[in-house]
């Protein structure tokens, strides 16, 4: 500070170039029209009693916190929120990330030929259309299906007995390739000599992973968690195709509930309000991950 006295303004401070606005304006306009406005408008709709059909579809009112109050008393909504969190944490965060990492590590250490074969199989599952995956797993878990035969309980329909588990597994099976690819790329880009140094220094495999590889992979892991969480929070097709949210409301995650309220029961305002909650949950998860990635290291 003392040194800088009398030298005038700093020459190396960041400067805003007004001319950049001209270059950015087309993009800004597009963003505003196609993104910012719809989002804000949706926020507004979430606090109205807009309906899909009937008189309320034209003349709807701002209803203040009515939708929120209704949610808090809505048993289905509460259950649905929990199911969503279970689905995202179980299938995406834990399942997909852990299994994806495990696969990436195994493939890294496997012979090239082996890893090529296994890698492609996993990726095929990811390339299959969701509806196909849904049908495959639907058949797989029926009474008399492959799963029941494997477990020697041929008269159990697992999609009825443990619906959330089956749906989560199907989702995991389909999406694990994504995490595997992300982690494989991350592992490949680790500085080889740093890992070699750890080995020469006598660190066991577990120690190398715990103290060197995972910390170095942290940015990759966080990116993966963010993407996977956001993708899975809005998962609709697979679950809807397998169970339509049933049996009862056993697999009614928020996206399905939004669909039901908005398009089956025509409560567009309430549906929008619920989808805002979905956004909120996503934001909370993202914040947690970003926080975690910044702390320690």
């Amino acid at each position, binding site marked *: 500070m003392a040194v800088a006295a009398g030298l005038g303004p700093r020459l190396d401070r960041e400067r805003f170039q007004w001319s950049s606005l001209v270059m950015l304006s087309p993009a800004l306009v597009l963003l505003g029209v196609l993104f910012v406005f719809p989002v804000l408008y949706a926020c507004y709709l979430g606090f109205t009693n807009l309906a899909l059909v009937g008189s309320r579809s034209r003349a709807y009112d701002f209803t203040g916190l009515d939708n929120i109050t209704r949610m808090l008393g809505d048993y289905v909504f509460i259950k649905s929120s929990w199911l969503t969190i279970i689905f995202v944490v179980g299938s995406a965060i834990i399942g997909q990330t852990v299994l994806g990492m495990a696969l990436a590590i195994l493939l890294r250490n496997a012979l090239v030929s082996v890893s090529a074969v296994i890698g492609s199989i996993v990726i095929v599952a990811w390339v299959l259309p969701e509806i196909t995956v849904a049908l495959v797993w639907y058949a797989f878990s029926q009474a008399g299906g492959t799963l029941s035969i494997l477990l020697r309980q041929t008269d159990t329909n697992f999609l009825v007995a443990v619906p959330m588990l089956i749906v989560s597994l199907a989702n995991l099976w389909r999406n694990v390739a994504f995490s595997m690819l992300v982690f494989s790329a991350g592992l490949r880009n680790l*500085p080889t*000599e*740093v890992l*070699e*140094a*750890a*080995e*020469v*220094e*006598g*660190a*066991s495999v577990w*120690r190398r992973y715990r*103290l*060197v590889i995972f*910390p*170095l992979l*942290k940015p990759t892991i966080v990116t993966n968690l963010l993407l996977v969480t956001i993708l899975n929070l809005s998962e609709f097709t697979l679950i809807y195709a397998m169970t339509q949210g049933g049996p009862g409301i056993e697999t009614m995650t928020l996206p399905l509930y939004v669909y039901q309220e908005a398009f089956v029961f025509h409560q567009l305002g309430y549906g929008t309000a619920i989808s805002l909650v979905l956004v909120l949950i996503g934001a909370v998860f993202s914040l947690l991950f970003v926080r975690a990635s910044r702390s320690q*290291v």
Partner: protein
Amino acid sequence: MLSEVRFEGVHKIFGAETAVEDLNLTVNAGEFLVLVGPSGCGKTTTLRMLAGLERPSYGRILIGDRLVNNVSPRFRDVAMVFQSYALYPHMNVYDNLAFGMRARGAAGSVVAERVKETADVLGLGHLLKRRPSELSGGQRQRVALGRALIRQPQVFLMDEPLSNLDAGLRVQMRAELSRLHERFRVTTLYVTHDQVEAMTMGDRIAVMNLGRLQQVDAPETLYDNPANIFVAGFIGSPRMNFVPGRLTTTQGKTAIEFLGVKTPISAGSQLTGETTGGEVTVGLRPEDLMWGRVASPDSTLTVSAEVDVVEPMGHEAYVTAVCAGETVTSRFPPRSGVRTRERVELALNPARLHLFDARSGRTILQRPVAGGADVRRTVREARKEEPAEGRSDLQRQTGARGAPSRAEEIS
């Protein structure tokens, strides 16, 4: 614990490239062996094979009596300083240094003590909380060195560990490494591009070229009796002069003709090989090719040359001159006053000529070890006798860096 290291017929082949070819080398227990050679000659590959990071394509590697070809790096008990440092980027200096000891299950208090000791020796005491990305190149290199030194392995592998340090710090670190080696006598394989490091630190020097080991010998021997033209040209700075010559035998006496002069093979030297048609390459070290006016009395041969370039180095000057169509470099005293295009007399001592077969490049003359080598040996011994001084110097060193030591001056 002293362990010798043996390479037996070791090859390393990468695709179409042979990085190391038929390496047979024994590093004696407790020896400090310096490995030198031009860039890409296979030095790092050799170290990596010994560390277990690269598997030899053929041959056997032994540490002590143990065949280690199939032993994982973890269990070889070697410490390596990587050419690229390979520091853990997400850990601070303290944790970088402590990693190896912790991995081997050392107690926290022991680790803390050793880290502090090592950091002090390397002048890193005030940087322990920093990450590698917040250090200068030389500081990183010292962390890399410290990470090896903190351990007590069976073998040290150091890949140009001082290359990025400033001259003063390099002298200190050199002394420190020599002192540590004197004390613990850990078998060491040390790669360097620095002539001074090679000459002053090594018990022996191994010279490699194009993946092949050229010669392994004590520094003086290597300097005085290089096995071939490559070694002769590689060791010594400025480089040895090579000029074409002819061997002639008249009445049973052999004489050498070169640069327009003729001299008999000096007494004490002996021809050890045949030449093809008498064609030889004569090697002349720049310090043996002196300015006529200041030449020693035994420099009995004189040639006339025209000065081309004068490079003043401060304590001496390198003069490049053209003599009988050949360009030669000579060491002149400082402020000699000679200028470009001036004609000068150059004097040389026939006893200090090197002779190589022009075809194969192999030496054909065995010379007695003498002259310059004595100086070198004295300095090496003097250095070894003064560990105490070297040490106190280092402990004072944070900030102010000591004056060049005597070892520096012989460069």
